[in-house]
């Protein structure tokens, strides 16, 4: 068999979880992270990040809508996936997915966005024509009550929803970590730190994603970037990243020091098959470089243009690093034999159902959805709504 070194159990040679399963925790991580950023403004009253509040919510929604697709595509029988809702197995971390997902989508994200946009939706419904009008009318759910009292109630309820949303976001991504962390058969995955590392890396990737998207949309719209806003986001990104990196290093040091029965095998893998994606891409380019760049902005006084460039580069590198981290967890966990005696190779197809093109399409799809959402529900400050309604 091609690509096998040493001894693999014969059923282990082919990987069962592909690049699509790499994409899935990456995408849900962006959702959870973007939502946490939005909650900064809402719950923790960090006014500086207000310009990104709505954008963060819409980003979270568009990625959340795409999140189940890679899972669905990877299933042998996608048509049977409703069984997860009909007969969820109480001992399975994966069975929780359906429910946590629905809860997060409907009770948290859609509800919060709806509450926040209700006034705009009602106004837009009055002003627009044709099909668009029908869409907006449907979104009002037949209630045009935007009296100050009703809006005040929305504000209060929205605050509570955000408050519930924070633990929900943690749960959404924490359980993804648990899916891997709870597999005792796999020493690369099995770790109680896994859910925590997933949550913090999710926050890092989500914050970086919204920061980059905010700067990109501002540039595309020809508006000035609110520097107070991106400075604050960058600061939060820096501190969450430090926590995330410390946790990952703690996990690594613990493994190296304990050096249990699996260590020799895993160590060899990290130095060979996983060297590029783990050491070079994830730790060097995707973690240390952006951390140093962000640290510089925190310590040295730099001009606006330089800061913007640094943020953009650091943000993109961070996203790449977190993607590499998901890759190393999912793919790395399948490259070594559970006999600790050999290694296999992951061959990713280009056009197959679980191939690179599908993965690429699935990564771009959330941006397309975000574009539609932005057109439908402009996230920019209220003053723009009347002026740019026909935009």
């Amino acid at each position, binding site marked *: 068999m091609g690509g096998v070194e040493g001894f693999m159990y014969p059923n282990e040679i082919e990987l069962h979880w592909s690049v699509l399963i790499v994409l899935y925790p990456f995408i849900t991580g962006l959702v959870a992270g973007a939502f946490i950023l939005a909650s900064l403004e809402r719950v923790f009253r960090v006014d500086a990040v207000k310009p990104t509040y709505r954008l963060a919510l819409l980003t979270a929604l568009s990625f959340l809508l795409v999140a189940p697709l890679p899972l669905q595509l990877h299933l042998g029988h996608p048509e049977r996936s*409703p069984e997860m*809702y*009909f*007969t969820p*197995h*109480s001992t399975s971390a994966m069975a929780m997915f359906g429910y946590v997902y629905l809860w997060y989508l*409907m*009770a948290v994200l859609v*509800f919060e966005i*709806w509450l926040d946009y*209700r006034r705009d939706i009602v106004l837009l419904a009055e002003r627009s024509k044709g099909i668009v009008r029908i869409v907006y009318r449907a979104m*009002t*759910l*037949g*209630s045009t*009550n935007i*009296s100050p*009292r*009703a809006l005040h*109630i929305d504000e209060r*309820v929205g605050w509570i929803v955000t408050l519930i949303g924070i633990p929900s976001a943690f749960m959404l991504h924490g359980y993804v970590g648990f899916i891997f962390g709870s597999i005792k058969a796999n020493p690369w995955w099995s770790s109680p730190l896994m859910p925590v590392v997933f949550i913090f890396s999710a926050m890092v990737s989500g914050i970086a994603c919204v920061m980059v998207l905010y700067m990109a949309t501002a540039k595309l719209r020809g508006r000035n970037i609110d520097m107070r806003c991106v400075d604050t986001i960058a600061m939060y990104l820096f501190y969450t990243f430090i926590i995330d990196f410390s946790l990952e290093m703690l996990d690594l040091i613990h493994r190296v020091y304990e050096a249990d029965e699996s260590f020799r095998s895993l160590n060899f893998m990290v130095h060979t098959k996983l060297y590029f994606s783990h050491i070079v891409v994830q730790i060097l380019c995707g973690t240390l470089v952006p951390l140093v760049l962000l640290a510089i902005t925190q310590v040295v006084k730099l001009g606006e243009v330089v800061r913007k460039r640094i943020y953009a580069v650091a943000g993109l590198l961070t996203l790449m690093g977190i993607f590499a981290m998901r890759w190393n967890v999912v793919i790395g966990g399948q490259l070594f034999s559970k006999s600790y005696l050999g290694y296999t190779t992951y061959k990713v197809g280009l056009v197959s159902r679980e191939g690179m093109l599908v993965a690429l399409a699935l990564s771009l799809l959330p941006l397309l959805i975000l574009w539609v959402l932005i057109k439908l529900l402009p996230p920019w400050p209220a003053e723009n709504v009347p002026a740019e309604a026909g935009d």
Partner: protein
Amino acid sequence: MNLFKDAGHLLRFAALFVIAFLVFWAIRGFVVPRSFGQYGHYRGAAIGEIGARPLHFAGHDACETCHSDVVDVKKAGKHAHVNCEACHGPQAKHAADPGNVTPVKLETAALCVRCHAASAARPKTFPQVNAADHSNGVACETCHQPHSPGMDTPAANAGGAK
């Protein structure tokens, strides 16, 4: 009262949830297989379906019902505990319809060495030979009757070769 009026839109959103839940529950009652949960969190009928899969190996008891003559030869020799289909292959079809389904003749040359070709990996007590040195190309069954392969047993030259 006024509060209820101003929170009316929230009730509409909640109503969406209630409707969705009722639809879900109705579909669930219709879709979940009847035997699900019969013995545990799985489809009970699956056990019966798996148990009803077709047989390919009839098992030595079925063989011995008819081929009692071979059994007699075998039980005296060293292959007493080697079951029929270990060499003859899956014979459930033959057992079900002995008149029409005839087992193919075996290639003893390939068959014997599967177990008896000498290798340091095999247990030392297990009889094994280097085929080339051992027989110089003479077919195994010239000297060894497969059903009772020992050279010193009286069954060695008895029937059972076919």
